[in-house]
């Protein structure tokens, strides 16, 4: 078995991973860094992000205001010291990206422009037209090419962390092009593999978002935090689930029910005005907007289509010029995927799963409880986003915490001893497992796609926007059955060369662990807060649940879920008010 030795490994080549790799290379050019990704970095899901990245830059804005919007948006489940770090470091990170070439949209005088975004009282979202994630990712990727010290293992799929003597010492990875299993040893590992939206059937997420990094940590005994908080983005296209950015609403778009009525005014989000009012109506937070959709549907006021119920996003009053200048991708997507022109027609939209607030438990520096293991980006839960993420905080988070995790991992690696002998034996075990159990003789006749679809259905029905005890229990049982069924999946493809079916199987196994963590964390949290809404516990309960959930994997049976208190510094929990 081939063994490759580095000082720091970064798993995942999206915004957080690339930023971490660059941070390590800049912190300590002597460190041997390697970026390991199951896809080429420019394919990472950061590329699909549209709306923007938030940072305080304009004179009318303050760090306190950004922090407060974030904390109230997260319904006080955010760790306030982490939020303070985020808002403080955000401007410099976004300026650094600008220096690296990111084509931020500008004011006429050449300064960076900002726009309004959901849940924020002041305009502070930097944007690059409506393809901010695309430009951010390509800027980071191209800039990373400058650092000769960063090695890359493109299209290598990490299957397991190597842990010995209580610290993480590397990974085992499958090289897709050849089917060879390798050991990559290092003194520190940073997980930046994104979220796991593909456990749900309707999602803005790409095919690759299968929670791989979360599962790697989970199986190594690291807890997953706040997994019950899954964000539904209010405006995804029906059938494909493709994202229509929140920026469409911040530029002035309206959400209409089947009677052409701006229904959000019925849900304590303010009064409809002709121009967008921050923190009101269509610029309310995502969880409240998605919940309003469900209520409208229950009242029979949504539009039924062959692909489910929708409401309409109306951009017609913005005019062609604004749409072309500020929302060109939205127009392109509508024309291509819905055969309609938003300049003249209404866009059908519905809530779709978009983001996981939860993830691998880390502290402010990106360190997990396992020494030598770090995490950043959607994979991690610091927690910045609490019970609900505000739009445009994620792209900022991946930069700030990608850099923090990178620096912390670099500092650790500089002091840590070299990886030891026992991990090589572990790696050989993993190779044997993959060759014999995964690729080897399997029986049972199940197909990956069938088991996957059943998992997605179970999550949508039991752990959707509104949940209750019986629905969650049913989902938990289904997941248990599916974990047995996945062992009976037989593969059509038993070859070694670029076997994408075995990758799909490994991803499915990962997703089942993520699904289990979501459902059991949701069962534990007997309250409603942010994106986690329980019809059987409809009120917020700060007395018992002003705490994160920590889900620890059990060898047999459901995960153990423990509470972890939230760090409150300056903003005591209050009422979440929008529209007034």
């Amino acid at each position, binding site marked *: 078995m081939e063994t490759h030795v580095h000082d720091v490994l970064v798993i995942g080549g999206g915004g957080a991973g690339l930023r971490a790799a660059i941070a390590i290379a800049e912190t300590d050019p002597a460190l041997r860094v390697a970026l390991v990704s199951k896809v080429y970095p420019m394919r990472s899901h950061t590329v699909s992000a549209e709306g923007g990245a938030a940072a305080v830059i304009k004179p009318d804005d303050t760090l306190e205001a950004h922090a407060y919007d974030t904390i109230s948006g997260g319904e006080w489940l955010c760790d306030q010291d982490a939020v303070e770090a985020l808002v403080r470091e955000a401007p410099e990170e976004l*300026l650094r990206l600008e220096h*690296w*070439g990111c084509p931020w949209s500008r004011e006429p005088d050449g300064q960076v422009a900002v726009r309004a975004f959901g849940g924020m009282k002041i305009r502070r979202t930097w944007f690059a037209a409506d393809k901010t994630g695309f430009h951010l990712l390509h800027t980071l990727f191209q800039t990373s090419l*400058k650092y000769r010290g960063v090695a890359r293992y493109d299209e290598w799929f990490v299957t397991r962390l190597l842990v010995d003597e209580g610290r993480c010492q590397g990974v085992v990875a499958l090289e897709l092009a050849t089917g060879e299993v390798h050991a990559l040893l290092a003194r520190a590992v940073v997980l930046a593999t994104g979220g796991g939206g593909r456990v749900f059937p309707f999602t803005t997420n790409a095919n690759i978002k299968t929670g791989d990094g979360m599962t790697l940590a989970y199986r190594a005994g690291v807890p997953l935090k706040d997994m019950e908080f899954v964000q539904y983005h209010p405006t995804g296209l029906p059938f494909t689930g493709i994202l229509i950015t929140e920026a469409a609403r911040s530029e002035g778009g309206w959400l209409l029910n089947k009677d052409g009525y701006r229904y959000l005014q019925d849900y304590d989000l303010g009064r409809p005005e002709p121009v967008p009012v921050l923190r009101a109506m269509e610029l309310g937070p995502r969880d409240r907007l998605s919940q309003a959709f469900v209520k409208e549907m229950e009242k029979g006021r949504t539009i039924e289509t062959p692909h489910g119920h929708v409401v309409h996003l109306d951009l017609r009053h913005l005019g062609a010029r604004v749409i072309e200048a500020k929302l060109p991708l939205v127009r392109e997507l509508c024309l*291509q995927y819905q055969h309609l022109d938003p300049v003249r027609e209404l866009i059908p939209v519905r809530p779709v799963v978009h983001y996981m607030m939860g993830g691998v438990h880390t502290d402010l520096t990106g360190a997990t409880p396992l020494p030598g293991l770090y995490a950043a980006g959607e994979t991690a839960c610091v927690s910045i986003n609490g019970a609900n993420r505000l739009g445009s905080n994620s792209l900022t988070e991946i930069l700030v915490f990608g850099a923090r995790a990178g620096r912390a991992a670099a500092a650790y690696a500089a002091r840590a001893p070299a990886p030891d002998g026992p991990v090589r034996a572990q790696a050989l075990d993993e190779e044997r497992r993959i060759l014999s159990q995964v690729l080897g003789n399997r029986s049972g006749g199940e197909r990956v796609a069938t088991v996957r679809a059943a998992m997605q259905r179970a999550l949508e029905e039991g752990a959707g926007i509104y949940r209750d005890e019986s629905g969650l229990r049913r989902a938990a049982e289904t997941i248990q059955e599916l974990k047995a069924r996945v062992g009976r999946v037989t593969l059509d493809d038993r*070859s070694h060369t670029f076997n994408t079916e075995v990758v799909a199987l490994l991803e499915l196994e990962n997703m089942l662990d993520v699904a289990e963590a979501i459902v059991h964390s949701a069962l534990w949290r007997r309250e409603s807060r942010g994106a986690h809404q329980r019809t059987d516990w409809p009120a917020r309960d700060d007395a018992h649940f002003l705490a994160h959930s920590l889900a620890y994997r059990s060898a047999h049976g459901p995960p153990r879920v423990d509470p972890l208190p939230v760090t409150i510094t300056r903003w005591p929990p209050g009422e979440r008010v929008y529209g007034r």
Partner: protein
Amino acid sequence: MPETLVLEVRRYRPEEEAEPTWQRYQVPFRREWMVLDALNHIKDHLDGSLSFRWSCRMGVCGSCGMMVNGDPVLTCATYLETLLPGPVRVEPLRGFPVIRDLVGALTDFLVKLRRVQPWIVRETESPPAQGEYRQTPDELAAYRSYAQCINCMLCYSACPIYELEPGFLGPAVIALAQRYNLDSRDQGREARMEVLSEHDGIWACTLVGECSTVCPKHVDPAGAIQRYKLEAAAAWAKALLRPGSGP
């Protein structure tokens, strides 16, 4: 509207055969399906051994480029309906070595990309905390289209020169070099000129123009290359007339 459609897919399984073969699949026809949906149907329900890349399914990640009926397209953005009655031929992107089935090797592009230094090159850096480098909307417009490249490689597949002369830098690499050359914040023009002016750089291009025709993001790499030819020629003439006037 028919109920089904036939896909003829190019297979290559190096462990089983020395040469690629064709395989026919019959898939359901749906008006809202792209070619990618048909391929996923095959993989999920008919033949799990079909290997291909895909990710975002919304035309921004650049993973799913393949030859469909002889043209390089993004399969996530090509409706089956436009290909009726079929059969639809699906092959891996031309011009790249095939690893397996519809998966090509992209290492050549990445090697060449690095050579043109696709990052902001500056003589003097100012710390980010001091504020942004000012750039007006017009200055941004100067390089905007070249910054839209999703690295899908359709342009390389469309370019006969790249197939005939594999050393050619290629449309996307040159367009990306131009993206930085034309960025008002960049000062790396000189640094990139040597690589771009090589025989296998811009001068290998004979303006077939197919790269710009197939580009799904309207980057216009052909335009980028021709514009740079004027610049490179002028620089060469200047150097000739005033030797020693270079950096």
